[in-house]
């Protein structure tokens, strides 16, 4: 099977090489004329040949065609087209700047011809979002949020009210890879998930891939969210910011050396705690509660073929009460990237990345005096190559390596009755290499196929325990530093194809196999800062998922409307759950607290979007089923996964009334989560205990919510803008259950009752945004 695959690859490679005589290459960068930012997925179209290409994630493009004189059109949604006539006698470097379409509605130049990417590309289950699109969508407390917006797409559902976590096609929260400038973000939540860590002012582009990821991505079995930070304006200084009810933001960007080098600094901080003293409540006065984000980026262009980027993210939540208690957590990421052009056809990017997530709890009281820390840390190296063979063939290959350090928990005691304690750190090396080939076999048929090989080494120092049936450790083997304790690996084939039925519709199919070597389990329904990541060990096996999907894509009205239907089936092996009553914190023997099983998910997703006009928006609906089967849970019978949402519907509409006023609304409906409710009760030593009969046999009440927003532009000039955004979250104040608790009635303890906790009634907010 594998041999055939490699043979196929080599054959295509040589076949295309023969056709390569007498050609020239047109290459260069496509950038925004006002900011100098590289444009991602901008289109290059050669009219005479009716062929084209798109820029990569750094704005670079390269296309090789027979020698000749051509009319080249460069285009990008929301920007004016640029058409050049180029005589390709020799290879030509052409850097192009595109100008954003003017603000006046009637002037907006949208030719739309290139907006059929959704139909023509081999990408499936993939959506790109640029923060500009976010601004009009109403969100809680006025914070435009990429993660919240993603949850409005089919196949992606929110993990709960105000939760930044999300489920993709029945996968768990930890099965989503979240990358910020290539660095893994381990906890995307602020304030227990009410906000995401992504400040939209600092973000250029976000792309989510729901499972059929190309070979360049790996390490998680459900999805990839690839977020790119802005590079910073290299033409002029620019200030952007906002003042909201809960937080304020400010970004500064500008050239260091004009057209060569630029920087961006973007910060955000909440200030709810600054208002606390005003509440007049003495007990609140000493409470600390805030979070902040800082995004930093700088780049330097040495030459047309060498560019260096440095980016970093620092964010932290801080909670505390007097000096007695402190709790803070956050992510740090850093990425150093080097873009290098070996030739006009071979683009490379090499990155050195660090990523860290940790939390610290400190208790300082008369009885106890200690500090708790836990987290995960990565050092990551990757190198990616893109070989733009000709207009029909693109070859990509690369390697990636992670050194993971897991810090399950450490207690430092400074006196009092608690002892210092440490669960040993764990170490792992995760390696992968991939190659993929994107080929247009005919005008109608495109294939992207690839192969990824990944390998995980569980490294010493470390102890390996064996357990008896009662989970009591029976023996231990100690490994020294650098010893290989266990190792796993596997091939991950990926393929996706597109067949164009006509110029506006296509059928796509894909298959992907993914391995996941690090795992996070949550005991709670909300994402909490103390959720812990676990490595693959000799007991915890790598999670493996296979997904097939098939889709029909159709655009109408000259790409004014796009629509798609996709079906998918996914099976997941080596899934992990805690066993009943698991003791998970600071447990040296954590592996004895886990049970393993499998899962499967299937569904159909409908998507309909209007791209152009005064009224834009989209509608998405997913019908799906997600089940799990564990020998040790529910007597071995299959049970619905918590995230099994039969129906998941959302509609988002944005109406631009005039240059000054924009109205927006979204409505969400989904089937309540599958949950475990009691089917009875009994008494033990005077306490009433709830009786459970099966896992996830009940449903939370259906969730639905309407949000409304209005944006009023106060001032709009070419280089400055001010606006006010009003929003109403949960406009009809639906009491969506966050939790349902079963407890004794306060008024009559002889009876028990179900108590619903709803987090939000209607939440109004106002935000002032500016840029100049």
């Amino acid at each position, binding site marked *: 099977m594998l041999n055939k695959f490699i043979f196929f690859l080599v054959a295509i490679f040589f076949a295309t090489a023969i056709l390569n005589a007498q050609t020239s290459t047109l290459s260069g960068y496509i950038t925004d004329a006002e900011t100098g930012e590289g444009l991602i997925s901008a289109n290059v179209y050669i009219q005479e040949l009716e062929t084209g290409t798109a820029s990569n994630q750094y704005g670079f493009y390269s296309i090789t065609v027979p020698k000749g004189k051509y009319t080249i059109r460069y285009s990008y949604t929301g920007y004016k087209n640029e058409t050049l006539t180029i005589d390709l006698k020799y290879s030509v470097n052409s850097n192009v700047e595109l100008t954003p379409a003017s603000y006046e509605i009637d002037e907006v130049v949208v030719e739309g011809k290139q907006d059929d990417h959704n139909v023509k590309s081999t990408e499936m289950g993939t959506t790109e979002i640029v923060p500009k699109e976010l601004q009009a969508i109403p969100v809680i407390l006025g914070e435009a949020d990429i993660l919240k917006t993603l949850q409005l797409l089919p196949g992606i559902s929110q993990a709960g009210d105000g939760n930044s976590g999300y489920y993709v096609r029945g996968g768990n929260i930890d099965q989503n890879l979240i990358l910020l400038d290539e660095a893994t973000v381990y906890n995307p939540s602020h304030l227990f998930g009410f906000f995401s860590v992504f400040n939209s002012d600092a973000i250029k582009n976000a792309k989510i891939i729901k499972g059929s990821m190309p070979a360049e991505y790996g390490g998680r079995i459900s999805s990839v969210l690839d977020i790119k930070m802005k590079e910073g304006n290299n033409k002029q200084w620019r200030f952007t910011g906002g003042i909201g009810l809960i937080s304020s933001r400010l970004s500064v960007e500008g050239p260091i050396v004009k057209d060569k080098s630029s920087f961006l600094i973007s910060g955000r901080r909440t200030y709810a705690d600054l208002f606390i003293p005003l509440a007049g409540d003495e*007990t609140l006065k000493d409470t600390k509660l805030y979070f902040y984000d800082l995004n930093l980026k700088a780049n330097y262009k040495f030459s047309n073929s060498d560019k260096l980027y440095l980016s970093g993210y620092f964010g932290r939540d801080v909670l505390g009460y007097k000096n007695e208690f402190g709790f803070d957590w956050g992510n740090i990421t850093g990425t150093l990237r080097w873009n290098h052009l070996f030739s006009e056809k071979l683009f490379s990017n090499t990155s050195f990345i660090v990523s860290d997530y940790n939390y610290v709890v400190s208790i300082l009281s008369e009885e106890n005096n200690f500090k*708790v820390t836990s987290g995960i840390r990565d050092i990551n190296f990757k190198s990616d190559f893109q070989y733009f063979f000709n207009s029909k063939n693109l070859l990509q290959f690369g390697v990636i390596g992670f050194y993971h350090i897991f810090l399950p928990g450490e207690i430092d005691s400074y006196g009092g009755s608690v002892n210092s304690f440490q669960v040993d750190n764990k170490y792992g090396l995760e390696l992968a290499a991939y190659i993929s080939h994107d080929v247009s076999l005919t005008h109608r048929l495109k294939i992207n196929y690839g192969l990824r090989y990944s390998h995980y080494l569980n490294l010493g120092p470390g102890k390996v325990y064996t357990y008896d049936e009662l989970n009591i450790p029976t023996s231990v083997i100690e490994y020294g530093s650098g010893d290989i304790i266990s190792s796993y690996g596997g091939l991950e084939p990926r393929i996706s194809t597109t067949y164009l039925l006509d110029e506006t519709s296509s059928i796509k199919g894909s298959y992907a196999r993914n391995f996941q070597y690090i795992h996070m389990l949550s005991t*709670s329904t909300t994402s909490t800062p103390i959720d812990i990541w676990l490595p693959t060990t000799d007991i915890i096996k790598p999670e493996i998922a296979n997904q097939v999907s098939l889709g029909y894509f159709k655009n109408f009205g000259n790409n004014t409307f796009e629509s798609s239907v996709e079906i998918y089936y996914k099976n997941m092996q080596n899934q992990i759950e805690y066993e009943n009553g698991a003791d998970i914190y600071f447990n040296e023997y954590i592996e004895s607290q886990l049970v393993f099983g499998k899962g499967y998910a299937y569904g159909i997703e409908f998507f309909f979007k209007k791209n152009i006009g005064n009224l834009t928006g989209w509608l998405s609906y997913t019908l799906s089923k997600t089940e799990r089967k564990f020998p040790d849970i529910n007597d071995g019978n299959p049970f619905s996964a918590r995230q099994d949402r039969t129906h998941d519907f959302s509609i988002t509409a944005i109406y631009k009334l005039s240059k000054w006023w924009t109205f927006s609304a979204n409505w969400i409906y989904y089937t309540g989560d599958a949950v475990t409710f009691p*089917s009875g009760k009994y008494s033990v*030593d005077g306490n009433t205990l709830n009786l459970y009969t099966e896992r996830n046999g009940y449903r939370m009440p259906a969730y639905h919510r309407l949000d409304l927003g209005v944006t009023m532009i106060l001032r709009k000039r070419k280089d400055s803008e001010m606006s006010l955004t009003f929003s109403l979250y949960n406009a009809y104040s639906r009491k969506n259950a966050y939790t349902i608790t079963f407890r004794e009635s306060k008024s009559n303890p002889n009876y028990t009752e179900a108590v619903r906790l709803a*987090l939000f009634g209607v939440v109004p907010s106002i935000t002032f945004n500016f840029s100049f």
Partner: protein
Amino acid sequence: MKKYIKIILANIFVISLFGCEDVIVVDLNSAAPRIVIEGEVTNNDTLTEVRITKSTDFYQPGIYKKVSGANIVITDNKGNSSTLTEVEDGIYQTDSIKGQPEKSYSITVKAEGKTYQAESTMPRQVNLDSLSIELAPSPPGGGEEEKNYFLHLYFQDPPDIDNYCRFKIFNNGEQLGGFYIYFDKFTNGNKIDYRLVLHAKPNNIKLGDSLMVELQSIDKASFDFYKTANSVNASRTGGRQNSSSVAPANPVTNWSNKALGVFTAYAVSRQSIEVEE
């Protein structure tokens, strides 16, 4: 440690800011009544006792059917054995088995045609040295309604061994809801000042009341039962329940054959204190 984490998670300020609670009616299935067996062997003057009841539906009043006519035998690891007598409906006792620390007890219950077995070992006794009580600072945002007391329990944790305890608290002789438990994982061998938070209102604690704490030294199986029972305990007044658990389940029990409840042999130490500001 875990206690603190729970406090944090439970008192997320956002919840207190926006959250609202109300009682709803949930359509719950009715479950076939299941047998609940509670057995206790102690080293004080209370008799060895076993109580057998049945579970009931969630929306029924808290009256539990008693199971009569069971045959119950308790044997210690020295081979002494005794059959319990039914003293009233569903309550069985014996005075010939007296609990002693570091002895193991096994029990066989035959009821309604089924046999249930369990084992428990009474650990060495941990002595409760003294108590103290103070008014807790009001929690952020809380008023008079939310008045809390800190009840401090002072004892010496025996070194070298794992110690598990349950604290049973009585206010003027009436038992408070909830299972308060302790494990010396992070505090082995230390002088312990264990602080319990008692909510004044739900526990009906007033000035001048007499609080009695019974420290029960229990084995690991009993500890695991109380720990897992706490997350499904409808009577818990000790604070917000761990209701957001992904998958609540019946507690881990030492009974065979799917009986609910626990069989525990424990050593007892008691102290009392009067509630003052």
